[in-house]
C-alpha cells in the first residue's frame, strides 16, 4: 500500500499543472498588465514652470501637470482637449488657483488638490462663431480672472466663476484686412488723475503687423478705446509684448516691442488704445560693456516675466553677434538699462529664467550651458538680482553621455529652495526636463517622445555591448522571484489589492529577458524610434520604455522633420541597421542617416535644393535604397546622388499624386528622365465637383511592408476569389455634410476603380487600406452613431474565373512557375463587395496590424476619441458576413452578420491606460508570425505586443518551463513506481 502512494502525488501535480496551463485566450487579464505592454505618461514640452510648495506646476501646450521636486514623479495632470492647447496660464500660488485658457474654454483649477476643475466657462460672445484669429491669455488677480480668447474677453469671479462682464473686440477696430489678432490681456492704471484700474488688451493687425491696443473699463468691460498704430510700426513676426508698469503711478502701462526692421518700439498702451498714438522708438544699449552696439544689431527680445515683476520690465535682448543681455526698463525714464550681458559662442549659450520675486528682490537665474562634446553638457547656474545686478553662482552641473546626448538648453526656470537659495528646472530643445540643485542633477524626465510625430520600430544590436554599462538590465533576485510567484498566484484568484497589482506589474516588467538590449530570435525585443518635427530623435526599448539614446538634429537650419524610415546607406556597415530622417524647409530637404543602435550620425547630412512635398522611397535595380523628393512645382531631388543611373532605369514605373483639398481634386504626375535630370509631368486630374462636398478623408497603402500570404481567397463553396492587390489604390472620401461619397482610384492612371455613396453620413472619414480592402469610419447622421464600412476588391477577369483543374494539375506536375505581374495600365474587371456596420466608439486614428508573413488575420486598430486603442478582428469587417449562414459559410468561418461591430472588453488593448492626445498608431511584425508590435503615441505613449489571431505558434513567453519539467519528471517517477507497485500486487494476488 505504501508503495502505491506516489500515484496520488502525480495526480495532484498533474491537476496543478493543468490549472496553471489553462490560460484564457485573447485579451489581457488584469494580472497580466505589464507583462507585454508599457504605458508612459508625459507632461510635454514645458513652457511655464512655477513652484508651488514642494512641487512644480508645469504648463505645456498639451498638459498642465504637477511634478514632485524630489523625484520628478507626476502627481496630477490635466490635458487639453483635442484641437486645443493650453495657450495661456496664470497661477495664484497663495490661493492655489490656476487659470488656463485653451481655445474658447476658460478653466479655473485647484492646483494644490489634484488639478481638479473649480469652474469652467466659455469665452465667447459671438454665439459659436469660429474665429481664426487665435491668441488666448489669462490675467488673474485675487478677485477677478480675465480670459482672452480669439478676440473675446470675459472677466469671471476667481472663486466662483460667476461672469462679471464680457467684451468683444473682434470688430472693435475697423480693419481693412483680416482683422486683429489679440494676444495679451492685463490690468493697469487707466491714466489720468483718478488712478483707477483698466483692463488692456494688446494685439497686432494680422496683415500689417502693426500693434493694436484696447482699453476696457475694469468694472463692466465697456470698451473705452481700441486703435492700431500707424503703418510704420509693423512688428516682427515673433515679437512679444514686454509690458511694464509703474507701481502706484497714474501712468498707463508701457509695452516694449520689436519692429520688423529690427528696431525696438515702446508704446504707451493707453494712448495707443484711445488715440492710436504713443508709439516711439526705444534705444537699446550695446551688449558688451564698453562696445556700443547699434540698434540694427538687435535680433530679438524675449519676455522674462508675466506679472511677477512687470514693474521692472525685465527683457532679454539678443544681438546679432550672438551675445545677449538681461535688460531692465526704467519706466520713469522710459530708457533701457543693461543688468548683465553674456557672450555666446557655438558651444555655449545663455538662457535666462523668468523673473521670480523673492521678498523685495526680483531674481533671474541665468544658466550658461556649454557643450563639452560627446553629448555631455555643462550648466553653470547663476542667480542675478535684477535691481542691483548682484550675481551669485548656484552650482555647476553636467548631464548627458555619448548615448543619451543632452540637446541644447531651451528654457530655464528658477525654483526657490530654502530661505534664499534657488534651484533650476531646465527644459532642453528636445523637451527633456531636468531638475538641478547645487551641483547635482536631482532628476531627469524623458519628455522627448511626447513631441514625436514620426515613429518607427527599429532594431536592437546583436550584441548589447554598444550600450556599455547602461545597457545592462538587472534581473530579479530570488526573493523577488518568489514574491512574483506569490503575487501571480494571488492575482489568479483575484486576491490582490492595488499596491500589490502595481508591484506585480513592476516585477513582471523586469522578469525574464524582455529588457535585454539585444535582439532575440522571435523579434520580440525592438527599439522604438520617435522623431519630433523639431528634430529630436529618441530610441526607446520596447521592454520597459527606457531611453536607449537621444539625438538632436535641430538648431542647424534643417527645418521641419517630416519623415523617418529604416535605411541602408551605400557604404554602411553591414552589421548595423540605419535610419533616415528627412527634414524640409521651404526650398530644401536634408537627409540625415543615423545608426539605429547608438544614434550616431552616419556620414554627413546631405541637402538637396528641393522642398519635400512628396517622398518616393525606391529600391533600385541594384537593390539599393534611394529617395526621390518632389516639391509642389514638380522639381525633383534625389538621394543619394550616386544612385541616379540606377534610379533612371526604373523611373518610368514611378509616379506620384497630390491630394489638393483646396481645389478638391487629386492630380497625378509621372516622372520622366530628361538626359540625367528627373522631371515630372502632369498626367491626370480627378476633380470632385463641389456639390459632392469637400475631401474629408484619404488613405493609401503603406509604401512597403505589406506581406500578402495568399493571393486568393477560397469561399466555402470552393470557388476562387483573386484578391485585387494593386498597391496604388487611393481612397478619397468627400462629404457635403449630408452624405459621404467614397472613391477608389488608381494612383498611377487616375482611373476610378469604384464609387459608392453613403447617404445620411458625414465626415471626417478615417480610413485604412491594406491588401485588397479598405475600411473607413464615419458618422451616420440618421442613426446618430458611428459607422464603419469595408470594401473588398477582387479580380473578376475571365482568366481568373475560368480556371481548369486539369490544366492546373498538369502545371503543378510539371512544376511550371507562375511569376505574374500586374499593371495599372491593364486593369482587370473588378468585383467590389462592400458592407457597413455600426460601431460605438468614435475614431481618431485607424491602423492595421501587419504580421511577418501575412498568415495571421489582420486586426484593425482604432484610436478612439477617448485616446484609447481598440483592436478589431478583420473578420468582423468582412463584407461577406451572411445574414443566414449556410453550411459553406460556416465551413469558411464567416461570422454571421450583425449590424453592430462587437467591442469586447479584451478588445481594448490599452486596457486601463489612456494615450492622451493620441496622434498615431504604428505596427510592425515580430519575427514570430502570430505576434505584432503596436505603438500608440501622442502626449503619452503605449506599447503592446499583441496576437491578433491568438498565439498559435508559440508558448507564452512567461511559460513556466521549470514547472513543466518538474511535472514531467514527477509523472515519470510516479508511473515507474506505481508500475512496480502494481506488479507486486499482481504477484501477491497470484500466489494467494
Amino acid at each position, binding site marked *: 500500500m505504501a508503495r502505491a502512494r506516489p500515484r496520488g502525488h502525480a495526480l495532484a501535480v498533474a491537476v496543478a499543472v493543468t490549472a496553471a496551463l489553462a490560460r484564457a485566450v485573447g485579451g489581457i487579464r488584469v494580472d497580466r498588465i505589464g507583462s507585454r505592454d508599457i504605458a508612459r505618461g508625459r507632461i510635454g514640452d514645458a513652457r511655464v514652470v512655477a513652484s508651488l510648495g514642494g512641487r512644480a506646476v508645469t504648463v505645456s501646450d498639451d498638459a498642465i501637470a504637477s511634478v514632485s521636486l524630489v523625484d520628478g514623479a507626476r502627481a496630477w495632470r490635466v490635458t487639453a482637449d483635442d484641437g486645443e492647447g493650453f495657450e495661456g496660464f496664470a497661477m495664484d500660488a497663495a490661493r492655489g488657483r490656476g487659470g488656463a485658457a485653451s481655445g474658447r474654454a476658460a478653466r479655473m483649477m485647484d492646483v494644490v488638490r489634484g488639478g481638479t476643475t473649480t469652474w469652467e466657462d466659455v469665452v465667447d460672445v459671438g454665439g459659436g462663431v469660429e474665429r481664426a484669429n487665435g491668441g488666448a491669455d489669462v490675467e488673474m488677480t485675487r478677485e477677478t480672472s480675465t480670459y482672452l480668447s480669439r478676440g473675446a474677453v470675459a472677466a469671471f469671479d476667481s472663486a466662483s466663476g460667476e461672469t462679471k462682464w464680457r467684451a468683444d473686440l473682434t470688430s472693435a477696430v475697423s480693419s481693412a484686412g483680416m482683422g486683429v489678432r489679440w494676444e495679451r490681456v492685463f490690468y493697469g492704471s487707466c491714466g489720468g488723475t483718478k488712478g483707477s484700474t483698466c483692463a488692456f488688451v494688446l494685439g497686432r493687425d494680422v496683415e500689417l503687423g502693426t500693434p493694436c491696443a484696447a482699453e476696457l473699463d475694469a468694472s463692466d468691460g465697456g470698451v473705452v478705446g481700441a486703435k492700431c498704430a500707424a503703418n510704420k510700426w509693423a512688428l516682427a513676426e515673433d515679437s512679444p509684448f514686454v509690458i511694464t508698469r509703474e507701481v502706484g503711478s497714474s501712468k498707463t502701462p508701457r509695452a516694449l516691442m520689436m519692429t520688423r526692421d529690427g528696431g525696438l518700439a515702446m508704446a504707451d498702451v493707453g494712448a495707443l488704445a484711445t488715440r492710436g498714438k504713443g508709439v516711439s522708438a526705444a534705444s537699446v544699449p550695446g551688449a558688451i560693456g564698453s562696445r556700443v552696439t547699434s540698434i540694427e544689431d538687435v535680433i530679438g527680445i524675449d519676455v522674462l516675466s508675466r506679472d511677477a515683476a512687470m514693474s521692472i520690465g525685465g527683457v532679454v535682448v539678443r544681438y546679432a553677434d550672438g551675445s545677449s543681455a538681461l535688460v531692465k526698463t526704467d519706466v520713469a525714464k522710459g530708457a533701457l538699462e543693461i543688468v548683465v550681458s553674456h557672450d555666446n559662442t557655438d558651444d555655449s549659450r545663455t538662457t535666462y529664467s523668468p523673473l521670480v520675486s523673492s521678498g523685495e528682490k526680483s531674481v533671474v537665474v541665468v544658466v550658461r550651458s556649454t557643450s563639452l562634446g560627446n553629448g555631455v553638457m555643462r550648466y553653470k547656474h547663476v542667480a542675478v538680482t535684477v535691481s542691483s545686478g548682484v550675481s551669485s553662482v548656484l552650482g555647476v552641473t553636467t548631464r548627458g553621455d555619448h548615448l543619451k546626448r543632452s540637446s541644447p538648453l531651451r528654457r530655464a526656470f528658477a525654483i526657490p529652495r530654502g530661505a534664499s537659495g534657488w534651484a533650476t528646472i531646465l527644459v532642453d530643445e528636445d523637451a527633456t526636463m531636468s531638475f538641478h540643485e547645487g551641483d547635482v542633477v536631482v532628476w531627469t524626465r524623458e519628455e522627448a517622445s511626447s513631441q514625436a510625430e514620426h515613429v518607427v520600430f527599429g532594431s536592437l544590436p546583436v550584441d548589447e555591448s554598444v550600450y556599455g554599462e547602461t545597457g545592462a538590465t538587472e534581473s530579479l533576485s530570488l526573493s523577488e522571484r518568489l514574491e512574483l510567484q506569490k503575487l501571480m498566484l494571488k492575482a489568479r484568484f483575484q486576491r490582490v489589492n492595488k499596491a500589490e497589482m502595481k508591484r506585480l506589474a513592476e516585477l513582471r516588467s523586469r522578469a525574464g529577458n524582455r529588457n535585454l538590449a539585444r535582439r532575440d530570435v522571435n523579434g520580440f525585443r525592438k527599439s522604438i524610434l520617435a522623431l519630433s518635427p523639431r528634430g529630436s530623435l529618441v530610441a526607446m526599448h520596447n521592454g520597459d520604455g527606457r531611453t536607449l539614446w537621444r539625438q538632436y538634429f535641430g538648431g542647424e537650419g534643417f527645418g521641419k522633420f517630416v519623415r523617418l524610415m529604416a535605411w541602408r546607406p551605400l557604404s554602411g556597415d553591414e552589421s548595423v541597421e540605419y535610419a533616415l530622417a528627412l527634414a524640409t524647409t521651404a526650398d530644401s530637404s536634408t537627409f540625415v542617416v543615423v545608426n539605429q543602435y547608438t544614434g550616431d550620425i552616419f556620414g554627413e547630412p546631405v541637402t538637396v535644393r528641393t522642398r519635400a512635398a512628396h517622398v518616393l522611397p525606391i529600391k533600385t535595380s541594384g537593390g539599393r535604397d534611394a529617395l526621390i523628393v518632389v516639391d509642389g512645382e514638380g522639381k525633383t531631388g534625389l538621394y543619394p546622388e550616386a544612385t541616379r543611373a540606377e534610379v533612371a532605369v526604373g523611373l518610368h514605373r514611378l509616379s506620384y499624386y497630390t491630394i489638393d483639398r483646396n481645389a478638391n481634386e487629386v492630380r497625378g504626375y509621372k516622372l520622366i528622365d530628361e538626359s540625367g535630370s528627373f522631371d515630372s509631368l502632369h498626367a491626370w486630374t480627378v476633380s470632385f465637383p463641389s456639390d459632392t462636398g469637400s475631401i474629408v478623408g484619404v488613405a493609401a497603402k503603406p509604401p512597403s511592408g505589406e506581406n500578402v500570404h495568399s493571393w486568393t481567397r477560397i469561399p466555402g463553396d470552393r470557388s476562387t476569389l483573386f484578391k485585387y492587390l494593386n498597391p496604388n489604390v487611393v481612397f478619397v472620401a468627400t462629404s457635403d455634410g449630408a452624405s459621404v461619397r467614397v472613391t477608389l482610384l*488608381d494612383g498611377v492612371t487616375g482611373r476610378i476603380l469604384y464609387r459608392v455613396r453613403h447617404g445620411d453620413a458625414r465626415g471626417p472619414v478615417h480610413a485604412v487600406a491594406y491588401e485588397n480592402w479598405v475600411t473607413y469610419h464615419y458618422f451616420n447622421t440618421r442613426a446618430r452613431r458611428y459607422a464603419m464600412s469595408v470594401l473588398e476588391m477582387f479580380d473578376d477577369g475571365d482568366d481568373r474565373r475560368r480556371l481548369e483543374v486539369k490544366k492546373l494539375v498538369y502545371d503543378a506536375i510539371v512544376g511550371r512557375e507562375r511569376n505574374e505581374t500586374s499593371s495599372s495600365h491593364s486593369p482587370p474587371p473588378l468585383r467590389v463587395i462592400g458592407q457597413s456596420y455600426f460601431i460605438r466608439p468614435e475614431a481618431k486614428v485607424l491602423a492595421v496590424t501587419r504580421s511577418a508573413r501575412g498568415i495571421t488575420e489582420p486586426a484593425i486598430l482604432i484610436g478612439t476619441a477617448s485616446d484609447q486603442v481598440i483592436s478589431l478582428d478583420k473578420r468582423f469587417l468582412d463584407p461577406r458576413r451572411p445574414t443566414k449562414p449556410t453550411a459553406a459559410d460556416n465551413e469558411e468561418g464567416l461570422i454571421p452578420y450583425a449590424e453592430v461591430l462587437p467591442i469586447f472588453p479584451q478588445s481594448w488593448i490599452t486596457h486601463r491606460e489612456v494615450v492622451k492626445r493620441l496622434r498615431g498608431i504604428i505596427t510592425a511584425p515580430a519575427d514570430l508570425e502570430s505576434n505584432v508590435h503596436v505603438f500608440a503615441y501622442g502626449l503619452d505613449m503605449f506599447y503592446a505586443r499583441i496576437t491578433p489571431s491568438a498565439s498559435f505558434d508559440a508558448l507564452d513567453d512567461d511559460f513556466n518551463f521549470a514547472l513543466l519539467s518538474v511535472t514531467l519528471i514527477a509523472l515519470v517517477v510516479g508511473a515507474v513506481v506505481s508500475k512496480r507497485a502494481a506488479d507486486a500486487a499482481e504477484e501477491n494476488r497470484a500466489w494467494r
Partner: protein
Amino acid sequence: MNAPAFAVRPRVDTDSSTVREPPGYVQSDRARGERREKDASSIAGDSTRRATSTSHAHDAAIELQRSKLRVRRAFAYAQSSVSSVGMMGFMMWMSGSSVQVFSIMVVFGGVAQTTRAILGSKATFEAFRDGDERANVAPARMMFVLVQLAGLLLALRKLNTMGLLPSHASDWVGGWKPPRSLERAFGGIELEF
C-alpha cells in the same frame, strides 16, 4: 474483417491417411502443414499404408458437396460485405460533411478499409477455397471487390464533399505568388505611415 474464420472443416484428404480427427477438433494450419509433410515422408517410406477404408465414389460426391459449400460460403461472405459497406456509408452519413475528428476518422477509415479489403481479397478468398481446386471463388471475389469498390467510391465521394480532395481550381492556386505590380505611385507627405 481479415481472413474468414469459417473455413469448411473437417477436410478429408483422399490421398493420405484416413484417420479422422476427433469431433470438434480444429486443426491449425501449422499442425496441418507439419502433418502433411509427415504424411508425405511416410508415403514415400511405406506404400502399404495407402489402403482405403471408404469408397472413392462416395467420397467424391461428398467432396463436390463441400466444394459447392465452399463457393457458397465465399458468396455469403462477399454478400455480407455489402452490409458492412452499407454500415460504413451510414456512419459516414451520420458523421456529417464538416471536417471534424470523428468524420475524418470515419471517412479515412472507410477509404483504408475498402482499399485494404480489395488488395487483400486474393488471400481472403484463397482461404475460402482452402486448397480445393474445384471450388471456383473468383465470381465471389469479383462480387466482393465490386462491393468494396462501391464502398471506396462512397468514401471518396464523401471525402470530396468534405472538401478534402483537390478537385477544384481553388485547391491548386493557393500557392500562387501574388502578382508583382509594375508601377508604383506615392502620395504626399501628408499620407504618412
